[in-house]
């Protein structure tokens, strides 16, 4: 049975960490979450990114955010990764499993997973 008391424990453990979480991350993972994205399966993709980034200890490095319709509904679920000084990377037709691989190889390892990108999907 979950209780509000457990949130108190989370609060206590967060005391020193909170200030670090405010917009210092260099990488931004943006998941399209309009009707088209949701219907195509964006919800588990978003939640997989959030969980995996946390599990791998990458919350200082990458923030996961949601946006509306990106405009390429036929490729949903669509995920864009922005990093200062680099070209935007657009991943298409994503799944939770693919999301975990992108966290491991791209966010953690710095290597784009080319086979999931829109460039690969169009060829």
């Amino acid at each position, binding site marked *: *049975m*979950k209780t*509000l*008391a*457990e*949130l*108190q424990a*989370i*609060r206590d*453990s*967060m005391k020193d960490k*909170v200030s670090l*979480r405010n917009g210092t991350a260099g990488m931004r993972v943006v998941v399209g*979450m*309009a*009707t*088209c994205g*949701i*219907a195509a399966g964006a*919800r*588990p993709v*978003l*939640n997989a990114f*959030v*969980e995996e*980034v*946390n599990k791998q200890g990458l*919350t200082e490095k990458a923030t*996961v*955010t*949601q946006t*509306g*319709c*990106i*405009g390429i*509904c036929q490729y949903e679920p669509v995920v864009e990764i922005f990093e200062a000084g680099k070209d935007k990377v657009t991943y298409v037709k994503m799944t939770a499993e693919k999301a975990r691989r992108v966290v491991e190889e791209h966010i953690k390892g710095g290597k784009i997973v080319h086979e999931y990108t829109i460039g690969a999907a169009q060829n």
Partner: protein
Amino acid sequence: MKELSLNILDIAKNSVKAGATCIEIFLIEEAGIRTLTIRDDGCGMSPEFLAHVTDPFTTTRTTRPVGMGLPLLKLAAEQAEGKLTITSQQGENHGTTVQATFRINHLDCVPVGDVAGTMVTLIQGSPDIDFEFLYRTEAGEKRLSTREMREVLGDVPLDTPEVLAWVSELLHEPFC
């Protein structure tokens, strides 16, 4: 939409876009009827916009002139012998209420699906908005109040991963 919980996520996103500070999501099952109510205190819609809002060619999105969110919820309700009702007000007491009913044992009634995933996604996307969630069935109820959570959490943001995990586990528990 394969699950009603995906419609809930989609429609609640409209409330977010309307600038709501509090969004109530109630899912009540009684006498064989499931009633979904999503009520917000957002900017509301004009009577003209409201009159055409379930037309797929009405939308606030700017990428293309098609909006499928409310039409899809209307379809889901009507295919299960239910209906969609929307009331909205601008100006004083502004806000919008979307209500959809479903006959639960109808062959074409969509399953409720992963409400925990929907609430986690909503809170992650809008940690500063308050959500009041209630899912009541004959087996009991599940409830989530971000206001109550904030009272305990203080200045710890709701989109902290540990907090989102707590929300997910809470809503995955059986009805009580």
